[in-house]
Structure formats: structure tokens, C-alpha cells
């Protein structure tokens, strides 16, 4: 039993970072009032660029390239939605489609259908002594992103709740006009959040292709970006909430995969499809119960128009 729990915990921690980073990124952008349905595309771009970059440079650097690529996609989103006040959902979905088809095209043109060549994964760290401790041992043996994913949510929490910048970001997502009358720049704050969110989503994608896998595959990130959105909503647009939800969803995935291999008879009782649907069903349920806009930032999705003339 302990054995099973250990391996479940281990694989959860191994798979969670991509989801955690993407959920944090989406949350950052949305807290500042800019809808982030484009995370899937940002993750895909980050994953692809990191996988390709890792062919020619050390993997940690390649992860940085992935982050930059995510931010690049986010910049297009910012240009359309902040500068030109376009519909943020349209812009995000467009970027998803471009990233989806563009990734496939580039992959097929340069590498073929089986994904990019194998790369050196980020190295895993064994924490001396810890690996022998029951359960806690599951904390040892992961790559850097896992440990980052366990700390970043708290840093984001600190950022949002305890720094001047965080206060301004929250304010700009709830009532941008109040921020503007105090002489602060609404576009600048939103640009910052959107680019930061893009970097996080790019990081999430990069982690997929450098730790979970060792390449970029045809379908990466296979809907993980949308699951990150679910985690953000389920976590009520808070860093720690999104973190907890992302961990929960990742554990669900790990459980499902674990069951499929170790106890297939259980899956006859609870079909895999149910487990797969669970994160989304729970998110819907929470939204239905909360009603109204849930805990979404009040100005989410509304382009800001300076009233001065």
C-alpha cells in the first residue's frame, strides 16, 4: 500500500509542474483582466521551441528559450487585446489554432511524424537521505521544475498579496478606471501580466518536452493548457488555489495511469473516461454552485478605454 502511494505521489510530482506553471501563468494574466484561453498555444510553442533549442544548447538554456517563445505568443495576444482592444477570446483561440497547426507543420517539415529527436532531459536531483524516508522519499529524484513548481505558487502568492506590484495588478483586473485616475498606466500593468503569463505558460510547455518527455510530440500538450484553465478557475483565480487544483488534477492523471497498469480491473468499475472528465466536471460544478462570475476578476475580458479626451 505504502509502495503504491509512494509511486502515485512520485508520478504526481513528476507530472504536475507543467500544469502548475501554465495555471499560474493564466492566472497572472487574468488577474490583470486579460482572458487567457491561449495558454494551450503558448504551451505548445514553448514546448516546441525548447525541444528544438535543446538540440543545440544545454537543456536548461533551452527551457529559457521555451519561456521566451511563450512570451512571444503572449505579445501577439497583448498587441491585439491591449493595444487594439480586440476580443480577447478570439485572439486567444486564434493563437491556439496557429500554434496547433504551426507546430505540426514545423515538426513535419523538419523532423517527421515521430517528434523531434530525443534530447538530454533536465537532470534529476536525488536528495541524499530523503529517498529512504517512506512517502517523503517521493520528493526526491525529480528535476528542477518540480521543486520550482512547489515554491513558485507561494512566490506568486507573495507577489500578489504582499507587493505593491501585486496590489496594482489586482486593482487593474477589478477596476482599471480606479487605477487610471491615480495616474498609473493600465496598459503597462496589463502588458506586464500578459507577458509574464506567457513566460509561465511557455515554461510549462518547455517542461513537458524536457522532463516529462524527451522531445516534442505531435500532440503536445494535448489539452493540458485547457486543464490549466480549469485549475485556475477551480482555484478561484488565486495562486495557491490554482496550485492545489493543479496538483489535484495531476494526481488524478497519475492515479488513472497508475490504475491502468497496476489494477485494470478497477477501471472496469470506474471507467477511465470518468476519471479523465473529473477535473472538468468538478470545475463546472464549482462554477454552477458559485453562480454569477464566480471569483473572476470583475474587469476580466473588458477592453480598457481611457475616458479622458
Amino acid at each position: 500500500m505504502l509502495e503504491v502511494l509512494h509511486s502515485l505521489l512520485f508520478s504526481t510530482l513528476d507530472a504536475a509542474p507543467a500544469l502548475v506553471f501554465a495555471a499560474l501563468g493564466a492566472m497572472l494574466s487574468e488577474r490583470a483582466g486579460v482572458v487567457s484561453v491561449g495558454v494551450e498555444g503558448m504551451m505548445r510553442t514553448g514546448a516546441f521551441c525548447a525541444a528544438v533549442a535543446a538540440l543545440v544548447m544545454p537543456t536548461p538554456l533551452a527551457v529559457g528559450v521555451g519561456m521566451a517563445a511563450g512570451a512571444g505568443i503572449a505579445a501577439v495576444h497583448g498587441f491585439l487585446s491591449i493595444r487594439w482592444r480586440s476580443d480577447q477570446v478570439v485572439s486567444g483561440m486564434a493563437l491556439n489554432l496557429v500554434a496547433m497547426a504551426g507546430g505540426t507543420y514545423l515538426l513535419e517539415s523538419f523532423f517527421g511524424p515521430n517528434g523531434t529527436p530525443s534530447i538530454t532531459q533536465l537532470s534529476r536531483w536525488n536528495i541524499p537521505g530523503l529517498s529512504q524516508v517512506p512517502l517523503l522519499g517521493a520528493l526526491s529524484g525529480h528535476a528542477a521544475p518540480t521543486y520550482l513548481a512547489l515554491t513558485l505558487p507561494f512566490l506568486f502568492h507573495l507577489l500578489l498579496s504582499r507587493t505593491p506590484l501585486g496590489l496594482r495588478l489586482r486593482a487593474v483586473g477589478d477596476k482599471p478606471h480606479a487605477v487610471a485616475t491615480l495616474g498609473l498606466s493600465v496598459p503597462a500593468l496589463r502588458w506586464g501580466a500578459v507577458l509574464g503569463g506567457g513566460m509561465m505558460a511557455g515554461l510549462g510547455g518547455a517542461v513537458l518536452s524536457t522532463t516529462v518527455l524527451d522531445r516534442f510530440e505531435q500532440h503536445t500538450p494535448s489539452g493540458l493548457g485547457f486543464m490549466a484553465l480549469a485549475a485556475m478557475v477551480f482555484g478561484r483565480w488565486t495562486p495557491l488555489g490554482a496550485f492545489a487544483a493543479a496538483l489535484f488534477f495531476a494526481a488524478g492523471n497519475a492515479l488513472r495511469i497508475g490504475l491502468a497498469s497496476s489494477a485494470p480491473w478497477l477501471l472496469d468499475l470506474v471507467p477511465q473516461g470518468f476519471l479523465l472528465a473529473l477535473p472538468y466536471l468538478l470545475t463546472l460544478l464549482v462554477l454552477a454552485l458559485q453562480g454569477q462570475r464566480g471569483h473572476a476578476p470583475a474587469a476580466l475580458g473588458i477592453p480598457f478605454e481611457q475616458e479622458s479626451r
Partner: protein
Amino acid sequence: MGERARQVLPSVLSVLLALAVCWLLIAITRDADTATRAYVQMLWGGVGNWPAFLDGGSATSVTRPLGEAAMKAALLTLTGLSVAVAFKVGLFNIGAQGQMIWGALAAALVGAHVALPGALHVPLALAAAAVAGAAWASIAGVLKLKRGVHEVISTIMLNWVAVSLVDNWLVIGPLRAVAEGASSITGTAEILPSAQLPRLLGDSSRLNLGFPLALAAALGVWVWLTRTRSGYETRAVGLTPEAARAAGIPTLWRAGGAMALAGALAGLAGAVLVLGTEGRYPGSLGAPYGFDGIAIALIGNNHPLGAALAAAVFGVLRAGGTRMQLLGVHKSFPELIQGFALLFVAGRMVWLALLARRQKRAQAQAQAGVEVPRA
């Protein structure tokens, strides 16, 4: 610049720009010659190889590609209409994919397990698909209208619920076809011949009833929106809900009805896929037609006929995509063109600003008595 031009120009320019950008992409990754030849292949693959045909080639060199294009166009038209109809009441239906999944499943089940003569079987399967899609969309509709849950989030979630439940449970579990002999097949049982959408050109093309059906749907939606009382009310609700309410229009029913219709159209897309080409619910739908619908609707400027036109254009491009493989360009390339076109359409404001500036400059020059220079 007329109102019509303001509506149509950004879309046309976006598609052209997308074609140009993607040509450049091949030109950069390969070379300009390959890019041009790939585009020519895409065209022949979509509208038929007319030069070959006129040179005395067989008729299938034209009918086959056109049939493929029509098939793709039918699916894109229906999902595009689905998104466009929801937009008419101000709702963003990202859930066409999930609605289509349930529609496809319903059509597959009715097609395989109900024994009826053809004249009844096809309509029944289509109706079942429409109802299934409408029901799934109505979940999002009710959540929005009764609980205020934003439809973008709820339809995204519902998509994944549909994928999980259908593709990862029903189709591989309870509804999986009973394997005949040793060969195990994926997906549900094969539909009965009576449920197949009739082929219109016999064996020379896969063109089937789905295409005229989709066109009829586009026409029907257009007629409904512009010529009927309830269509008029629906548009009023989408444009100015408070004024519609003040005019005594039942706004909730109109919005909910439009969302259900959107789901029904997406469900029909699923039926056309299953009854027309696949013959069963396959392991999965294979392509994100529902997301394509967003692109088609927006490129078509949310006009039913505009969506049909955009679907025809991209149906041709996507059918032609397979021919691009002859030149080593992956068949998904037209989807990239479509994605870029949507991205450029998303920048509609940019286009309008550019066009307005151009017009202003022309006016200023005209006023100053200066001839507008011609390029």
C-alpha cells in the same frame, strides 16, 4: 467606405495575408519554387485538376477533389454556423467540438441499431444528432442564463467532458463494436446501409448529401435570421439586450434557443461525418472541427452565408492539403493558413484603422486637388 465593405474587406484581406504569410513560410523553410508549386497542388487538390481534365484526363481528376473539398466544407459550414448562431445572441460557443461529438455518437447509434427504410433512417439519425448536440449545448446555455457562468469557460470544460466520456469510455467500452472474427475494430458498430448519406456522383467522388445539407442549413439560418420574427428577435437580443427586453422580447428564451440551435448544428456536423464518410463513430473525431468552426464563423464575419463561403474556401484548401504532401509539405498546412487568417481577422480593428487612414488620406488629397497616386 460602405458598411458592406467594412464587413467584408477585413476578412478577405486577412485570408489573402494569411495565404501570403504561409507561402513565405514554405519559401523560407524550403524555397520559393516549392512554395508556389505546393500552392498550385493545393488548388488542384481542392477544385480539381482542370488542366489535366481538359487535356483529356478522366472526369475523376475533377470530381474526386471537388468531392473531398465539399465534404470538408460541409463539416466546416455546420460548425461555423454553430459558432455564428451563438454569436448572434452574444454568446461565444467554444463548445462546438463537444456538441459535435455527441451528435456523431447519436447518429452512429441510430444508424447502426435502428432498422428503418432509407427515407426515414437518415432523417431520424440526423434528428437524433441535432437533439444530442442541442442538449449538450443547452447545459452551457442554462449555466449561463440561470447561473451566470461564462459560456467560454463552461463550453471548454464541456468539450473535454465529452471527449473523456465518449472517446475514452463509451466508444472503447460499452458501445464498442463487437469484434467480428479476429480483426478488432475501433469505434462503434458500422451503420446500416440505409443510414448512409447517399453519394451524389456515384463512385467517382465521395461527394454526398452532407454538402447540400450544410448549404441548406446555411441558407435556412440566414432566412431565419433575416426573414422571420423570431430570427429578428434573436438578433435584437444579441445586439442590444436591454432594448430587446423593453420591446417585450423574451430575451432568455431567445438566447437559450440560439444556443440550442448552435448545438444542433454542431451535432449535425457530427452526423454528416459519421453517416457520410466514417460509417461509424471512429475512435475519435480525428480533427478539432469544432475549433475550426470558430475560425470559419469569424472569417465569415458571423454571417451564415459568409460562414458558408469561408467554409468553401477552406474546404478547398484543406482538401488540397493532401496533394501538398507530394512536395513534402504536411497535409495539415491549410490549417495553419486558417489559423493565421483567424488571427488577422481578430485584428479587425487594425484593418479598419488602416482602411480608414487610407480613405482619409485619399480624401485629403482629393480636397487639396491632388491626384491620388496610383501604384
